[in-house]
């Protein structure tokens, strides 16, 4: 399958602080890929590199086969960019901003933008600076949908949105991406929203990628195992086990291994009344990255 984004061996430092080293990933055409990670693991750094606003220390990022640092300006027509916080030109009103952007994009779909604006029930002369964060998110989304790009790069799209606006944003985006076979690369700190939207996820920890796989595969294969243990218990064989913890005699651990094998292994190590729990994306994220 054709890759729309291809990042190879990205390494980046802020001063002497290493953000990550040799990070490589790709996003195939038509996929919605979510980048998940704790604060400070480099999600925004990755988005900034991808959108051409940060030169990585080493490595390269290709979008539509072009190196992002040398990308032809025309190629940017096919990339819709949502900046963290739904930033838009505050000095414009909703009519002016539509007119402004439409001049740059030949495939501009004016109706897509105004359909969203009708939902907001705002006057065409309404200034963006006087809108709530939720309303601004719809303006930003409307502009991206009207631009009709092949690739959407969305940085923390849920930031500052109440559940209603988040749901509206996710539903619109999901419907658009699937019906038009668009590729989306996004981050969000609210993982429940991602679960409704993304096909595939990359989970990052400090300095590295923990996993990249389809969400369904992750949720089908990654499980939490819970049981009871005696005081002083410690897991001796931790092969392919993630974040084992004990609290008041209650033991839990996460693993990708087949359920039967894990249960047998834990039983042999002294974990009693052991059972497996199917996970949602947020629990899977916690299981891979740990609670703190």
């Amino acid at each position, binding site marked *: 399958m054709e890759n729309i984004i291809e990042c190879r061996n990205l390494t980046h430092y*802020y001063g002497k602080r290493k953000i990550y080293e040799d990070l490589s990933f790709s996003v195939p055409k038509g996929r919605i890929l979510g980048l998940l990670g704790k604060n400070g693991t480099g999600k925004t750094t990755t988005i*900034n590199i991808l*959108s*051409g*606003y*940060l*030169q990585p220390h080493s490595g390269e990022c290709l979008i539509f086969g072009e190196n992002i640092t040398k990308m032809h*300006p*025309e*190629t*940017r*027509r096919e*990339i819709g*960019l949502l*900046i963290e*916080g739904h*930033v*838009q*030109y*505050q*000095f*414009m009103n909703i009519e*002016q901003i539509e*007119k*402004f952007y439409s*001049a*740059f*994009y030949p495939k501009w779909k004016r109706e897509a933008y105004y359909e969203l604006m009708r939902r907001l029930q705002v006057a065409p002369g309404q200034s963006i600076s006087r809108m709530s964060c939720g309303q601004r998110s719809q303006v930003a989304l409307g502009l991206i949908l009207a631009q009709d790009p092949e690739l959407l790069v969305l940085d923390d799209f849920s930031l500052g949105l109440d559940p209603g606006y988040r749901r509206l944003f996710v539903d619109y985006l999901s419907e658009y991406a699937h019906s038009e076979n668009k590729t989306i690369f996004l981050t969000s700190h609210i993982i429940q929203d991602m679960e409704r939207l993304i096909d595939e996820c990359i989970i990052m920890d400090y300095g590295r990628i923990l996993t990249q796989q389809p969400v369904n595969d992750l949720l089908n294969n990654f499980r939490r195992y819970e049981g009871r243990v005696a005081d002083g218990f410690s897991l001796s064989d931790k092969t392919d086990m993630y974040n084992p913890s004990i609290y008041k005699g209650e033991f839990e651990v996460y693993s990708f291994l087949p359920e039967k094998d894990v249960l047998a292994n834990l039983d042999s190590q002294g974990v009693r009344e052991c059972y497996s729990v199917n996970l949602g994306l947020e629990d899977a994220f916690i299981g891979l990255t740990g609670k703190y």
Partner: protein
Amino acid sequence: MLRILFLKEYIKTRWFILAAALTLSGFSLYMMMNLYRIVNLKGAMHIWEVILQKDALFIDLIQWLPVIFGILLGLFQYVPEMHRKCLKLTLHLPVSYTKLGMLMVGYGVAALTGVFLLSFIILWTMMSRVLMPEMVSNILSHSLVWYLAGILSYLFTAWITIEPTWKRRLINIIVSVFMLKIFFISNVAGSYYAFMPILALYTIAASTLSILSISRFKTGVQD
């Protein structure tokens, strides 16, 4: 595309440009009314005498206004771009960033030139009625230095505002202050005659400074 990019700059700056044009024209009119009042009281000969013997310019009141308006226009135009890094939106447009930067600067220079031209025309028209052409030419050619300083201050403000790091911003401010000082060394009419082409070249060269800041912004330079 040019029209729509200028429209964005116009939306940000229209009220300021109107206010600047009215203020500068108002000051120019006020100075000329003062000149007319002295002519009425003491006669034109007296004015000529003061101009020739004391190197008086009679328009000193506006000498700092072009610089102030240059700085303010730069702030009105570029602070909204830097607010929450809105400049990313502009630089994401399918146009090369050097072209975008030059167009933004071009708009500012054109707008300032318009404002200054209005004041210049008022001064020239009203002065010509009471002063000899040589005197008018001497005084107004000196005012050109101030207008040029106004344009340069605008270019420096763009350079400073877009710069992504505070450390470099501080250095840019210091450099700008020293560079602008050159335009205000002497207030004697004609003292900048020989130097004017150099000052003009200097200003043209400064028009590319904002591209340096944009380029640093693009590579994600941080403090």
